[in-house]
């Protein structure tokens, strides 16, 4: 059994205090110990983006980060985006534009899209494509995803 370490960080605005094995990934911590299953496993090696979360304002594949490295950090998962029962505008835009089919990749896709728009409110379609190239989707062909993001950008501009 691996050595455990006590860990303190902020998840979706709330403090978390938990003991974690030193070799546990953030993805497994979220899914197995914190019941935050919106963040998906689909490849486990940083190639598909399904496990994307925000850590201190930047996005990361949570399968590639050790849980112990969360000490003192702030993270946002897909479950932390909505306000009460109201969807975040990015989530609502994905729903409105028909960007969600099987939906399995969407938590990572939405987290990444929201990050891109926060970083650059005047995102072009080409920049969106580049910014989302690490997020694999097998259902949509990305077109409706791009439409959804473009709508949010338009609303801001």
């Amino acid at each position, binding site marked *: 059994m691996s050595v455990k370490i006590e860990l303190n960080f902020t998840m979706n605005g709330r403090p978390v205090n938990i003991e974690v094995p030193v070799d546990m990934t953030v993805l497994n911590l979220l899914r197995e110990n914190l019941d935050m299953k919106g963040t*998906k496993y*689909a490849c486990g090696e940083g190639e598909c983006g399904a496990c994307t979360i925000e850590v201190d304002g930047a996005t990361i594949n949570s399968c590639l980060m050790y849980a112990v490295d969360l000490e003192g950090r702030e993270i946002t998962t897909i479950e932390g985006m909505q306000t009460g029962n109201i969807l975040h505008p990015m989530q609502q835009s994905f729903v409105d534009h*028909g960007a969600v089919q099987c939906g399995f990749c969407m938590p990572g896709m939405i987290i990444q899209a929201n990050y891109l728009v926060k970083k650059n409110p005047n995102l072009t379609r080409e920049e969106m494509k580049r910014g989302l190239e690490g997020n*694999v989707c*097998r259902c949509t062909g*990305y077109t409706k995803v*791009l439409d959804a993001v473009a709508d949010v950008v338009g609303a801001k501009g």
Partner: protein
Amino acid sequence: MSEQVAFQHIEKTTLIGKRIKKPDAPAKAIGKTRYINDMVLPQMLYGKILHAGRAHAEIISIDTSEAEKLAGVHLVITAKDTPELRLGFVKDNAPLKDKVRCERDEVAAVAAESEAIAAAALKLIKVDYKDLPGVFTIEDSQKEGAPVIQERFPDNKSLKFEFKHGDLGQAEADSDIILDDTFNVHYVTHCCMGTSCAIADFDHNGKLTIYSQTQYPYNYKMDLAPALGIDPGDIRVIQPPTGGSFGAKLDVYPFEPVAAILAQKTGRPVKILFDREEEFINSPTRQPASMHLRTGCTKDGILTFRAADVEMDNGAYTSWGATVPVIMMRTTSGHYRVPVVDFKGQAYYTNNSYAGSFRGYGNVQMTYATAQHMDMLAEKLDMDPIEFRLKNAQKSGEVTPQKSYLRECALAECLTTAAEASDYVSKLNKYTDEREQEGRYKRGIGLASSIHNAGGAKIHKSDGCGTILKMDDYARVTVITGASEIGQGIDAVIAQIVSEELGVPVEHVNLVNNDSDLGPWDVGVHASRTTFIAGNGARRAAIKAKKQILAAASKQANVSADELDLRGGFVVQDKDGAVVTKLDKMLRQMHFQPEPDVVMVSDYYEPNSEPEGRDHISDHSAAYSHAVHIAEVVVDTLTGEVKVEKVTMAQDVGRVINRMGLEAQMEGGMAFGLGFALSEEMLFEEGRLKNPNFRDYKVPTAPEMPEIEMHFIESDCEEGPYGAKGIAELPTIVVAPAIANAVYNATGIRFFNPPMTPEKVARAIWEKKNA
């Protein structure tokens, strides 16, 4: 309030053709949906499978004693524990193997208290193998004295399909041009984002509940039962939300009975979930095929015959997917007017991985060949390429040699619409002229078309779907349908159709469709059939409910039921929309009376198609549809990179139902074809997969997506719901040959062996230059 209502008039409107949001999208977008991958049952154990990791071997011995001793391990099983159990289309497969026939073969399985313990236990199992010489190509499989893969099939031949029509010798003699080419189509796989998963749980009466990603829950029971030695009636299938399917889940695969056997023997629920590498190695592929195609035509551009000799790599076991020649031959014989046909399809056992069903079902392969031959013939004839195709395009009412009855045929309209929209002919000529000029980047445009079943495909005894519809005292509707939802959007379509008929908001229609104990029978979500078949079923059930309500209302209002309608939550006068009463109030009045009249109706819709039959001469679908894609590409002649800039689509959709869902299927379906054409390829070396990850197996990502222009041709199918046809496979089928034809237009080089990777394209350009 009631006084105001009495003076209200409600106009007749329609939802058909509108944009309807998927009801399950919000929960998916906020991460609330629990997919099967996310599920944990009380007392659940984790199963893991030891795969052989070698292509062909005898198993001399298996020692599981160390694994059994590991803390947290509950059970280890091998083929010895499951001697008589079989699965697969010809029952040549088993949950656990006593001999290794391919890399993915299941040798042993463990149930433990965590995935980590199960994985550790697998490492403690000692297997002594004696490797055997393997067969890794169709040619090697055919050789005299080739190693035998399946003892029951000593000549290594699996399924065989034949269809002949007309006098081939005469047709050859009548031909001025005969093309003769062999197309070799490669291995690709589905790459569902949610990896394969099953959770099995037995109760104390011996009844199995299996949580499954299956696309065909009712026949799944029939296929799973012999792999467990239980009665199909003792299986309940629950379909939690799943991370994509695309045909991958149209069969039973060994991990599913293995999970069930572990559950049966431990008395605990057992979950088996693949990691991505396991998913690549152990899930189905599309059939790689060698297609020898000959096409003849006269100098006037009239097709004289098609002869196709298709050899398929079956892999080590025969799955449902091995039946794809059923569809290949429909395209060979029925796409364009082909007077004489000679189709042969034969699958050969090898020690490679085995293929399953995959979106397009054989038609992706066949159309890659036929659509290039059409392009080549137009060029050889020096004929306007649209005129050539139009000369051979069927019209409504024509019947193909296999007796596919093209009731509403919009092939010509698809061709002219796409060609005009993209300025196809003038661009084709311009790029041909520019081909031999200097310059690193070459432009090309290419057209491809195909036909596909669009009203189901009667490959089972029934191609039907059951629907149960009930309304409560508040005018909320519950529809229990046999139709499965795998992300494609039948949930939205059924809510839309029921809403259309009963005049209630879409949000007031609840769908129940994930439990085989509740749902009536359906053949499964495949063959582009669900909107057509389940949509018709839902519509028919809703019409029955409406009749019942209007009959009751007619008595109360003392007018004929024909003069009434349901709109906006009210019973109204049909002619002017004058409100008669509120629908929920009407339903309560019907319910709470001395002789209660409760709305609970059912329907079983069987399409008017004919069973496929052994001779393959039957009108096997209730509708057929065509699509044309025109791809515009830029080829970097230095690096060989092919960039698809735009795809113009024209497809006969019968009638648009949910416009948003339809567009989404077009876009997503096209992306599958794009990956198949340009980048996706499973690389096998002596039966072992060399690229089981997203780094080395390249699925399309956002930057590769071209601009898409869609044209929906509405041919108004008489049998389809509101005139609709099935739509979801054609976009995958036609885009790859359109790209191949465009690459030819740009470079003058034909690629008969996809994918058109930069390496392959650059080498071909270099060889052409230095020839």
